[in-house]
């Protein structure tokens, strides 16, 4: 098993990940060389529109990709708590003993739709305790006590009574809280949340986000938050990766991304959202829509208003780094350097 030395502070490092899907008529390259890093206790956001590959990236980490998906390259280095070494998750079998240990035990995931993520025919409490029984040597009674404690911690009132409820007896917000409780059951070191509040109402969203931030702090977790909602990103994470069509086009500290975006896509995206603080007026528009094919070169060139030249259509630009770890891939800042496709 390969172990590499990286920054002691890193818990997850995705290097040049490539994932494609085989469809009957064609192959879709969903993720095209994504690199990202999550530090211990850090909260990292991955933001992008539908089809940008953000969910595929997170599912690749947990080795939960669909059967027709193929990892074409890259590494997913994760620091395993047992020996504090970085291991490549792609070197494990997706259904082997290591991944079974990691999934739920070391990396936990919160999904968008808590109604479908939970089983409707099992009691909520049993589903939470099952995770503990699967991963640890606790007794059923201990697990049950801990489940009640966790449910209380995530703000489920009268947890002792509600532990034997089924999911249909829970409201959407409560289900998402129960999901957080289940995610925490085995003391993971990394929490991946894929659109955790998208299906929820705005007041419930605020509560769930606050809950995620609180448990992250209390349990010392690293967080990878995947969302399309720039508001949620701004309110929650420290560091942001902006994805477009399977590529990270820009990444940096959250303040830098919002105050001083560099990539034309990030700039346009931020301008196109009606701000709660803004007044009436025309919204800035990104022309066209996300194409359903992968353009050559920089994938954004079909919609970009600041195309530099032919290189935008043929090559993927090298990264330009601004201060404080703010990196951008755009020929505007680096006219000549890029990879030939």
């Amino acid at each position: 098993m390969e172990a590499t030395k990286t920054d002691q502070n890193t818990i997850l490092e995705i290097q040049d990940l490539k994932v494609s899907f085989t469809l009957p008529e064609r192959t879709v390259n969903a993720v095209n060389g994504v690199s990202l890093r999550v530090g211990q206790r850090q909260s990292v956001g991955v933001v992008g529109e539908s089809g940008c590959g953000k969910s595929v990236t997170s599912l690749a980490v947990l080795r939960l990709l669909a059967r027709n998906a193929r990892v074409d390259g890259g590494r997913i280095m994760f620091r395993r708590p047992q020996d504090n070494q970085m291991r490549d998750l792609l070197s494990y079998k997706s259904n082997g003993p290591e991944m079974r240990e990691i999934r739920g035990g070391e990396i936990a995931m919160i999904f968008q739709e808590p109604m479908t993520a939970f089983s409707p025919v099992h009691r909520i409490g049993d589903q939470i305790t099952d995770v503990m029984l699967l991963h640890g040597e606790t007794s059923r009674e201990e697990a049950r006590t801990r489940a009640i404690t966790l449910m209380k911690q995530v703000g489920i009132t009268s947890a002792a009574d509600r532990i034997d409820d089924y999911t249909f007896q829970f409201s959407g917000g409560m289900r998402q809280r129960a999901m957080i409780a289940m995610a925490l059951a085995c003391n993971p070191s990394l929490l991946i949340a894929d659109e955790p509040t998208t299906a929820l109402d705005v007041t419930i969203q605020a509560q769930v986000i606050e809950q995620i931030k609180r448990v992250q702090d209390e349990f010392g977790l690293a967080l990878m938050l995947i969302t399309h909602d720039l508001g949620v990103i701004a309110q929650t994470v420290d560091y942001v990766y902006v994805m477009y069509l399977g590529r990270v086009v820009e990444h940096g500290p959250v303040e830098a991304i919002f105050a001083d975006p560099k990539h034309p896509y990030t700039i346009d995206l931020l301008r196109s959202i009606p701000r709660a603080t803004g007044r009436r007026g025309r919204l800035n528009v990104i022309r066209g829509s996300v194409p359903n094919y992968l353009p050559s070169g920089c994938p954004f060139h079909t919609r970009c208003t600041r195309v530099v030249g032919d290189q935008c259509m043929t090559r993927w630009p090298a990264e330009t780094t601004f201060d404080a770890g703010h990196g951008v891939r755009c020929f505007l800042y680096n006219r000549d350097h890029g990879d030939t496709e």
Partner: protein
Amino acid sequence: MSIGNTATESRGAIDQSASRDAARPDNILSVRDLKMHFSTGGGLFRRSTQTVKAVDGVSFDVERRETFGLVGESGCGKTTTARLILRAYEPTGGSIMFSPQRGVESDLATAPRGELWSLRDHMHMVFQDPYASLNPRMTVEQLIAEPLIVRGWRRSRYRERVTELLSLVGLDATYAERYPHAFSGGQRQRIAIARALALNPALVVADEPVSALDVSVQAQIINLLEDLQTELGLTYVFIAHDLSLVRHITDNVAVMYLGRIVETGPTEELFLRPAHPYTEMLLASVPVPDPAFRKSRTVVRGEALQSAATGIGCSFADRCPFAQDRCREIDPPLERVERSDGTSRLTACIRASELDLVGLDAGQ
């Protein structure tokens, strides 16, 4: 709509003498005490046991050529209200006075079939999900022309209209022969808008028209809706849960909670200085897309549960940080409340005049 100062105010009635116009305001829609109660819990051989009061005494006015927003969380009755306006449901009670042209007025709530048929020429709906609202087996031309065909237009006549509508919503006329699957979400919503405009309606009810779309495409559709309003003199009833969007597009807004309007007024005033504690909570939970204004702790408590609406007292009392015992005893009417800064607001809170609530721009 601006703030009026009437002395006489009766429950459920919104003051008509508002100073928005020297004369009587030109309302395209006047909804009074609208109710929609659904029976649930019944089975084949069982009597229905419960009544869900999805809309329970809602009153508001929509002025001609304005955009009126209905906001609130799921289950608050905003979609039911929209459907009642189009009479997709038979209301349990109340009236919906609709005036397609100045001086002409009919009650949609009680209009007989024949009259309703002709009234529907003047109003149309745009739905949330353009993947569900467009029949995949119909071409764009068939989809857009359907309301025209239903009204007896011949192809020679409607073809031209379809071309006109396509260019109006920014689509190429050559798309008419294609099927919906060939289009992106944003383009599909443009088709849905073109269909809504086919009969040249005065009123368009848009229920979450952009929430199924990508962020970058939402802006295109919002701009299109605003352009069409200016060009065609449309009135919109705009339903959305995204408060930033509502603030951007609406002139007036009504905030709904468990089937009732808790507060209504000019959008900007209401967002800056809410009068109802629920509006404050709703505004406080908007994730502001700016990390410089990160919220420390939200003031949000509890959830909107239909079961919590006991019918006695304020239905928001159990979540309200300002609730007192009398809030659980008195049913708060929607009435104009004078506020400490000299303004007034239509709100359903018995403590509204004492409270000084925080709006959106607080600290920003």
